[in-house]
C-alpha cells in the first residue's frame, strides 16, 4: 500500500449549469454550461506537495473542492487511498437523500455496508481543507477553542473533556498559537489574519488528516506573514507526512515550497512537472508568459515581459482546439484544430502543447 499514490484524479470534469430562465426553457434553448474543470487528471504521492497554479477561471479551486467531495464531479473519478470517492460527494447545500447502496471500488474495507453519511465522515477525517479568506472562514461567534474542538465533536474522537483540551492545545501550539490558553477563549475578530489562518489549520489538523487541500491560504495575508504560514505547511509535511495540494495564483510562492507544479488554464492542466524544472524551463507558452510577468523584487533584473493581450475567455465558450491558442504568441494554424493532451516531455515533466 505504501507505493500507492494517496490521490488519483481521473479525467475530472465539473460543469455548472447556467440558468436559461423561464423563456429559455420554454423555447427549448440548448443548455449552456460553465466548464470550470474540463478534463483534469493527475496523481499525488503520499507526502508530496503539489501546487495547482492558475489565474481566475482556471478551475484550481474547483478541483480542490471536488477532490474533497464538497462538490460532485460531473464526470470522472476521484480515488483517495485507493477508494473511489466520487460518489460520496455531496452537492453544494446538501440534498436530503440518505444514501447507502453505492458500490465502492475499494479493496479491503467493505464500504458498501456503510451508509453514505458514514462514508463521507470517513473521508472528512482523512482529507481536510484550508480556505482562502481567513476573515470569512471562521464563524464569528465561535471562540477559538470551539472552532478547533468542533471537528472532534462531530467525529466523536474524544471521550473526556481533558482529552479534548489536550488535543486542542496540541493543535493550536503546533500551529504556532502558544500558549494555547492565551488564544482559545478569543473570538476570531480579536485575531489577525495570520492568526486566524493558523486557527483554521489547527482545526483541520485535529482530525489528523492525510491530505490537506490549501486553497490560496496566503493570498489574503500581508507579505511579511505569508512565509510563516507556508513554513508551517512545510513543517507539517516534514513531521507528519501530510500530503498537501496547494492552490495559488502566485507562482513565486509555489516555487518556494512545493515539489511539483501543475499550471492550469481554463479548466485544464497545461503543464505539470517538478516545480524547479517547470519554473526554470517552462515548456508551455502560457507558463512562460506567466513566469515572465511575475515581478521580481530587484529593479536591476527587469526582464522582458511577455504580456499576453486580452483576457482569459469565459469558461462557457471555450475556444476550439487548443483553448489557449487565441492568446498564444506561438500559435500555428493547427492549434485551432487539435486539442492537445498532457504528454511527457522529459521524465515526469508533461506539457499539453503540440509545439513543445
Amino acid at each position: 500500500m505504501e507505493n500507492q499514490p494517496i490521490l488519483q484524479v481521473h479525467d475530472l470534469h465539473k460543469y455548472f449549469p447556467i440558468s436559461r430562465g423561464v423563456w429559455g426553457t420554454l423555447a427549448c434553448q440548448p443548455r449552456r454550461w460553465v466548464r470550470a474543470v474540463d478534463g483534469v487528471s493527475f496523481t499525488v504521492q503520499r507526502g508530496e506537495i503539489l501546487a495547482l497554479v492558475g489565474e481566475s477561471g482556471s478551475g484550481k479551486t474547483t478541483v480542490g473542492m471536488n477532490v474533497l467531495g464538497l462538490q460532485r464531479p460531473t464526470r470522472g473519478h476521484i480515488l483517495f487511498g485507493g477508494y473511489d470517492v466520487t460518489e460520496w460527494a455531496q452537492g453544494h447545500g446538501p440534498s436530503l437523500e440518505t444514501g447507502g447502496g453505492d458500490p465502492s471500488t475499494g479493496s479491503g474495507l467493505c464500504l458498501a455496508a456503510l451508509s453514505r453519511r458514514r462514508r463521507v465522515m470517513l473521508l472528512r477525517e482523512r482529507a481536510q481543507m484550508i480556505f482562502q479568506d481567513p476573515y470569512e472562514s471562521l464563524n464569528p461567534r465561535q471562540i477559538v477553542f470551539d472552532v478547533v474542538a468542533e471537528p472532534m465533536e462531530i467525529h466523536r474522537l474524544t471521550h473526556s473533556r481533558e482529552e479534548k483540551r489536550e488535543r486542542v492545545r496540541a493543535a493550536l501550539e503546533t500551529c504556532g498559537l502558544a500558549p494555547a490558553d492565551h488564544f482559545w477563549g478569543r473570538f476570531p475578530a480579536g485575531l489577525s489574519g495570520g492568526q486566524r489562518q493558523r486557527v483554521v489549520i489547527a482545526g483541520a489538523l485535529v482530525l489528523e488528516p492525510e491530505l490537506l487541500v490549501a486553497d490560496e491560504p496566503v493570498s489574503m495575508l500581508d507579505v511579511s506573514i505569508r512565509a510563516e504560514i507556508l513554513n508551517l505547511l512545510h513543517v507539517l509535511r516534514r513531521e507528519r507526512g501530510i500530503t498537501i495540494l496547494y492552490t495559488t495564483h502566485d507562482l513565486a510562492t509555489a516555487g518556494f515550497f512545493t515539489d511539483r507544479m501543475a499550471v492550469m488554464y481554463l479548466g485544464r492542466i497545461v503543464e505539470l512537472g517538478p516545480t524547479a524544472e517547470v519554473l526554470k524551463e517552462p515548456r508551455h507558452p502560457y507558463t512562460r508568459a506567466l513566469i515572465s510577468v511575475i515581478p521580481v523584487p530587484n529593479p536591476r533584473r527587469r526582464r522582458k515581459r511577455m504580456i499576453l493581450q486580452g483576457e482569459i475567455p469565459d469558461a462557457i465558450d471555450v475556444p476550439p482546439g487548443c483553448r489557449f491558442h487565441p492568446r498564444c504568441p506561438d500559435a500555428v494554424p493547427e492549434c485551432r484544430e487539435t486539442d492537445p493532451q498532457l504528454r511527457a516531455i522529459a521524465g515526469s515533466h508533461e506539457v499539453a502543447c503540440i509545439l513543445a
Partner: protein
Amino acid sequence: MAILDVRNLSVDYLTDDGTALCAVEEVSFRLEEGRSLGIVGESGCGKTTVMMALLRLLPEEGRIVNGQVIFGGRDLLHCSEAEMRKIRWCEISMVFQGAMNALNPVRTVESQIVESLRLHITQDIRVARERTGELLELVGIPAQRGRQYPHQFSGGMRQRAVIAMALACAPSILIADEPTTALDVMIQAQILELLERLQAELALSLIMVTHDLGMVAETCDDVLVMYGGMVAEYANSDAIFNDPQHPYTQRLMEAFPDVEEPGSTLASIPGNPPRLDELPPGCRFEPRCECQWREAFCAQKMPPLVELEPDHCVACHWASRIG
C-alpha cells in the same frame, strides 16, 4: 525638479471617545516631475491616509495636525476648499482603491466619464463625448464599448476605465492606490504596462501606493517605505532593493518570494504591525526588529529621518550611525 513636496505631514484620527490616535507622523517625501514614486507598506501603515490628506479628502475623524504639501508654489493644506476642488482631478488625480468595483452600475461607462468632464472642463456634451472616446482609446478600450455597463466589462477593463476617468482632465500627477490588487497576474502586467506608457505619453508624474514590492520594483523610480505611520526608508528604487538600510526594509526584501530562485528560504517578520492606540515612544518597528545591534535606546527614542547619502533617507538609529 520636485512637482510635489510633502514635508512633515502628520495626521491624527479622533476616536469616538475623543482621544487622538496618531495615524501618520512626520512623513516627508518629494515627487520628482516625470518620475514615479512607490509608497510601500503593510495594511494600516498609513499610506492611503497620506494620499487622502494631501488631497484633503480625509473623513470627518481625520485631522491634519502638521505639515506642508507644496504643489505649484502653494501649500495645499492651506488652500480653500474651492481652490482644492479645482486642483483635485484637474491637476492631481487619483485612482482609489477598489474604484473598479465602485463604478455606478446603472450608468454606462461613457456617461460616467462624460459627467466627470462636464463638471470640470466643458459643458458641451459633444466635446465631452469626443474626449471620452479619446480617453478610452488611450487606455486601450475600444471607444464603442463605452456604451456598455460596468458589469459587462471584465476586471481589467473596469480598471482601465477608472484610469481613463482619472485622466479626463489631463492632470500632472496621478495617484494610484493599489491599482492592480484585485486583478490576475497577467492583467496586472497589462495595467502596469499601461501606466508606464501613459506616464511617458502624457508626461505624468505617478505615485503608486501598494503593498506589492514586486510591482514597485518593476515600475517605480523612487520608493518610500512606511511602517506604523512613519517613514522607515526613502530612496531610489535601486538603493531600496539592493542596499536597504532599515531593518524593516531588509526583512521585507527577504519575505518576498523570487520566482527566479525557487526553493530559497522565505523570511517572515514575527509579530504584528503596531496598534495605533498603543504606539511605543521610540522606534515603532523595534518590537519586531531582530537586528543584532538593537539596543534599549531604540525603544525609547524615536529615530529621526536621516539622509545617509543623497536621496537615501533612513529612520533607524543603527543605520544612521553605521552609514
